[in-house]
């Protein structure tokens, strides 16, 4: 059987015009990595949106970041600062990974 290691998965849904700032923050925090997935539609307290609005305003993307449990608080705080005034949500969940050295 293959050995797995517990990690945390952060999923941050954020507006496209703010993506660059979030990624800059993550890089300054030295997270080991992240992956950005596009979204095509959504709804939240600010109303519904869907792809193809001419402007990127309101258009969301999802940032996935696998990190170790210990690092979660120090990452959540600044991420929250970027999101605070803007639209977006953050979830944290448990995952298992194979290569622990990678994260």
């Amino acid at each position, binding site marked *: 059987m293959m050995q797995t290691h517990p990690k945390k998965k952060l999923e941050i849904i954020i507006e496209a015009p703010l993506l660059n700032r979030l990624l800059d923050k993550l890089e300054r925090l030295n997270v080991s990595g992240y992956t950005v997935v596009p979204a095509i539609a959504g709804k939240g307290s600010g109303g519904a949106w869907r792809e*193809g609005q001419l402007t990127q305003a309101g258009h969301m993307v999802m940032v996935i970041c696998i990190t170790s449990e210990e690092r979660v608080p120090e990452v959540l705080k600044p991420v929250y600062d970027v999101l605070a005034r803007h639209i977006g949500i953050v979830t944290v969940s448990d995952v298992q990974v194979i290569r622990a050295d990678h994260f």
Partner: protein
Amino acid sequence: MTSFFALASQNILSPMVLFFGLGLLAAFARSDLSIPESIAKIMALYLLLAIGFKGGASMSGVGFDPRLVAALGLGVILSFSIPLAGYALLRLTTGLSKIDAAAVAAHYGSISIVTFVAGTQAVSSLGFSFEPWIVAVAAVMEFPAILTALWLASRAGEAKHQTEGAELFREIAFNGSIVMLVGSFLIGWITGKPGLDIVNPFIGDPFRGVLCLFLLDMGIVAGRGLRQGAGELEWTTIAFGIYMPMAIALLTAVLVLPLDLSVGGHALFVILAASASYIAVPAAMRVALPEAKPAIYLTMSLGVTFPFNLTLGIPAYLMLVQALKG
């Protein structure tokens, strides 16, 4: 007035405006007709490339026109000050919050490149020519309005963007639309007529066909926005989306008189000033004034003012300028 009806109906019965109407209808009927986002984006860049390049190319070989400097200056002043007037009007006549009023006002200080493009088509189809550098005025009017809106919002104590100021400024100044428009203008200027000959089969002849497809998409997007957003707007806010461009047009038509532009150039300046942004400013607002509600400002500029300008506004401004220039 017959003349206005003639002008307006000629404008409305052009394929471009009819395709916009088709898009509106499709959205109202909840059709699944839609233009992929990547196509909408490349068509927008194409229009900027074409309009910039042609403007630049017709500058080359022409002696320097001192009116250009005055026109650019006037454009910047208008873009800075229109949001002040808009903000005051919105606060007086509507229930919009300070932050929403500032955001909406910013859109009216900035410009809509597609309204400008539609204006050039209307002006040309009536046989008027215009100063090629008018497109440079479009470029400088894009973003002063954003600064005014930020100042209004910070005075209202609701924007705290000190730390991000420089970064925000860079983002706005180098946003894709401006880089594409100014860059193409300069390349057109440098390469001149021979350069135009090279790219013309791409940006010249097919231009109006692409514009039809782009306006179809704008109709779909505007229609969807109206379906969702219209219910949330007071009628005083909607009225602002109609009388504000007309007021701006009147003011600008007079202010531009001393520049002594051609009828076409004068009309295009007025059309620019009366148009409202729906690409660059909304994106800037999301970053700088995220508390302002996109449903309000997008519905206003794309759902109310754009269709008004496209159908009735452009011919009206054109008649106004013809009347003023005697």
